[in-house]
C-alpha cells in the first residue's frame, strides 16, 4: 500500500482526520492510501484525491504537491523532503492566511502551435513554442481592467501564458476571496465577449517555491 501525497502542511491537525498525516522533517505530508496496483489515472482515485485536496484547504493553507508523488512510509517521506523542509516551513508560516486564485483568459487570436516535424533541433522547437506563447494577448482593455480590479486585491500576482491562453495567478488573503469573486463578476459583465475562468481558492501552487520571488 502506498500513500499518494496531496500536500505539505504545518501541523498534524491541518491534516487529520481528512487524510493520513505523515511526519517529515517537522512538517506533515497529507497521504491518501492507494493500492499499489491501482493506476494513477483511475477516475475514482482522481476524484477522491481532488475532494480530499479541497477539504484540506478548507482546514488550512498548504503547499500543493503535483499528483503522482507517493511514499510507502515516513522514512521515505523524510528522505525525499530533506532538502526543502526549511523553505517549506517558512513559506507555510508566511502564507498561512492566504490562498491562491487563478484567472485564465482565452487568447483573442490563438497562435498556431509549431509543428515539431518542421524542426531538426529540439532547442529550435522549444524556442518556437516559447515565441508562439509570447505573442498571445487578450483584449488590452480586459488586461487593464484586470490590473485595476483584481491585482489590488492580491498580496502578490503573477502572469503566465501558453499558446492559447493567458493566466493570472493571485495570492490573496482568505478574507478577500469573496471580493475577488465579486470583481470577477464585474469583469464578466463588462467584457461579455472575453472567455475567462476565475477559479479558486487553491492551495499554494504557483507561489509554493522560491522561483517566483
Amino acid at each position, binding site marked *: 500500500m502506498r500513500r499518494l501525497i496531496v500536500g505539505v502542511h504545518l501541523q498534524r491537525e491541518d491534516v487529520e482526520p481528512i487524510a493520513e498525516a505523515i511526519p517529515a522533517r517537522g512538517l506533515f505530508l497529507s497521504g491518501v492510501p492507494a493500492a499499489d496496483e491501482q493506476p*494513477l489515472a483511475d477516475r475514482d482515485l482522481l476524484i477522491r484525491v*481532488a475532494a480530499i485536496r479541497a477539504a484540506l484547504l478548507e482546514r488550512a493553507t498548504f503547499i500543493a504537491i*503535483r499528483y503522482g508523488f507517493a511514499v510507502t512510509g515516513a522514512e521515505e517521506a523524510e528522505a525525499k523532503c530533506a532538502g526543502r523542509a526549511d523553505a517549506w516551513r517558512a513559506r507555510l508560516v508566511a502564507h498561512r492566511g492566504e490562498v491562491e486564485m487563478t484567472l485564465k483568459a482565452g487568447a483573442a487570436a490563438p497562435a498556431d502551435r509549431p509543428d515539431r516535424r518542421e524542426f531538426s533541433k529540439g532547442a529550435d522547437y522549444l524556442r518556437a513554442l516559447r515565441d508562439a506563447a509570447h505573442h498571445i494577448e487578450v483584449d488590452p482593455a480586459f488586461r487593464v481592467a484586470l490590473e485595476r480590479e483584481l491585482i489590488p486585491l492580491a498580496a502578490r500576482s503573477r502572469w503566465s501564458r501558453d499558446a492559447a491562453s493567458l493566466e493570472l495567478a493571485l495570492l490573496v488573503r482568505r478574507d478577500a476571496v469573496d471580493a475577488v469573486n465579486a470583481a470577477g463578476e464585474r469583469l464578466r459583465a463588462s467584457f461579455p*465577449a472575453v*472567455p475567462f475562468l476565475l*477559479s479558486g481558492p487553491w492551495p499554494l501552487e504557483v507561489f509554493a517555491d522560491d522561483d517566483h520571488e
Partner: protein
Amino acid sequence: MEETQEITLLETLDHLLDRGVVIAGEATISIGDVDLLYLGLNVVLANVDTMARGGKR
C-alpha cells in the same frame, strides 16, 4: 452534468494534475505514466474547449 459543474470538475483536475511542487525524482515517473499524461492532456484540452464555448454564449 451541468456546464458549471463540468467546468469546476475540469478546473479542479487541471490543478490536481498540473500544479504544485514536483518532488525531485518523481517528475520522470509521472511523465512516464502514459495513462496519466494522456488524461492530463485531455483535461487541459477539454478545459480550453469548455472555456471557449462558455465565452461564446
